[in-house]
């Protein structure tokens, strides 16, 4: 299955994280919030100004900026 960055994941489709290229404090925080390789998430909405994106992960909604989402790579989950 082809890897996509989070901004390319179709809305409401579930993706599984396979690579995160974020570094520094934000990387640690996102890991602790559950943004880990193997976790499932979906992009629920893109805000009207195209940034940030609303992500659903572990039953919580998170707003992440586009440049952050571009560094999170996922594989589209197929049923």
């Amino acid at each position, binding site marked *: 299955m082809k890897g996509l960055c989070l901004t390319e994941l179709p809305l409401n489709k579930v993706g599984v994280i396979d690579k995160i290229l*974020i570094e*520094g*404090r*934000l*990387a*640690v*925080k*996102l*890991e*602790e*919030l*559950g943004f*880990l*390789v*193997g*976790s499932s998430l979906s992009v*629920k*909405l*893109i*805000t*009207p*100004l*195209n*940034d*940030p994106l*609303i992500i*659903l992960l*572990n*039953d*919580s*909604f*998170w*707003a*992440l*900026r586009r*440049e*952050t989402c571009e560094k999170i790579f996922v594989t589209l989950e197929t049923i």
Partner: protein
Amino acid sequence: MTSVALIGNPNCGKTTVFNYFTRSNQEVGNRAGVTVEKKEGLCTFDKSVKLIDLPGIYSLNPFSLEESVVKNYLIQESPDVIINVLDVTNLKKGLFLTTQLLEFCPRLILVLNMCDELEEGGASRIVARLTETLDAPVIDISAVKGTNMDKIEKLLTDNDFLTPPCERRYVRFLPEDEREISKLPFSRFESIERYVKNPEGRKRITAQRYSYIDGVLAPLPDNKNKKILLTEKLDRIFFNRFTAFPIFFLVLFIIFYLSVQVTGRLFRQGTEAVLLLCKTGAAEFLFSKDVSPILVGLISDGIIAGVGSVLTFLPQIAILFTLITVLEGCGYMARMAVLTDRIFKNIGLSGKALLPLLIGCGCTVPGILSTNALENPKEKEVVLMVTPFVPCSAKLPVFALLGGSFFPENPFIAPSMYIIGILTALFYSFIFNFQESRRAEKDGFFYELPYIRLPPLKSIFTQVIKKLQGFLLRTGTTVFLASVLLWFLSNFDISFHSARSIDTSILASLGRFLAPVFAPLGFGNYQSVSALLAGFFGKETIITALAVILKNPADIAGLLTPGGGYAFMVFILLSSPCIAALSALRRELGTKKLIFLMILQQLTAYFAAFIAFLTLS
């Protein structure tokens, strides 16, 4: 004294638990960052139990300043017991912090809040599973309804729970090859991840924690959270490209239209009539008792007129506070922050900067305190510098009065002050960030969007009452003292003899001395300048001063042209805030930066008022 710390994710109900046991009315809200400082209170059931309400955190590794508050508290104070509050409808996120706390605090109580939102029997299954796996007491509660709170009370007074020594339990969450970390001499409440320099090792530990949590939650039924479905549906409207900003501006317009225009029109005449009745009634009564005319003047024209003129705006303030509390409680305020993030990003800030500015519309002091939720120190400093430009609720009566006096037919005058204030704040944010415009973005941005829900009426009521109490307290202290001082300054001349008229008073002399400075702005008369000076105590005392000087504050319309009146409003809007806000700013920024800010504000106010006067004249 047993110290009990309340710890949990943001927005899981810690403050509601705190308020329940201490009978206090600390602010609660449906967004991250409502509690920005630790608050302490003694439990009503046992005065030897001290409860400490801490800001919400996601883990023991601090990212924001409020998370540092929690960590510093835990390391320095080492509480006897930790109550770990979890939102039962979102256990996975909350249990991550639990795994860290379990490692360091042997005496931990897990409190599952919002259990009333689960199906019947759901809570007991979760309690049984967590008790079995986590080896800590687990209690299902509804803090809002007060369900099962007695169980927490019982545990906090149970010597069998409080006295036995306990051991740390961290190794259970560690993968086999990380066990040597347990031998490190780290201090209490430092998370293990902090000592793992290798990012891969750190990730493994985090993943191990989540895998442990998945194991704990696996046997429990996966009920699709109803709140998620509702939130998703509503968010499709709140973030829709065609409806998002119309709703955003409509909400802001409704707040200020209802509080300034509608409530003002409904209550102003009535409250003014009551004030006049009190004033004349008190004067007649005191004269009938043969009280000295000076004392009668002080009471009726000084205290009752001064304090009363501010109190007449109580209904408007109450509506403003209620609407801001509802906005916060339902979760829409957090959405406003996300919606505007792209705009704030252009000026080097994040959408989180909107919250201190919005809260500042209620009162600048909590607006200043709420900047602690901002992760980036540079961003925090910029927001601190610009928050005083946003008009607080104390300025609302001033704008309502002056707007109504100078432009009785125009409902947009008072809202225009909010627009000017916010635009000035954005302008200075851009200027302050100009050289390091990408600095605030360095650490990235993430923000949790809480589930949308109807805020409990009781909670709104208690919070509005608390905020109104604060307003009344200010009126009873600052405004009272300012009224007495202003009455003295307006009734005595510079040789401290009774002034023949207000024109010969100390206040008039002081006002006349400074008036030429303000002549180019269209309000170079001593009455307006004296009122400005009084505004230093608190912006609402401007009305008090006008009431003392002119008898009827609305008579200012006879002294100035509409252009001068508008310039007067602009100057009040942008000049330095009251003493309380300055003192909060000094604590956060330090004296040097505060002096810089005060000079900047005065110059900005002068320049903007000059432009306003020139334009409207």
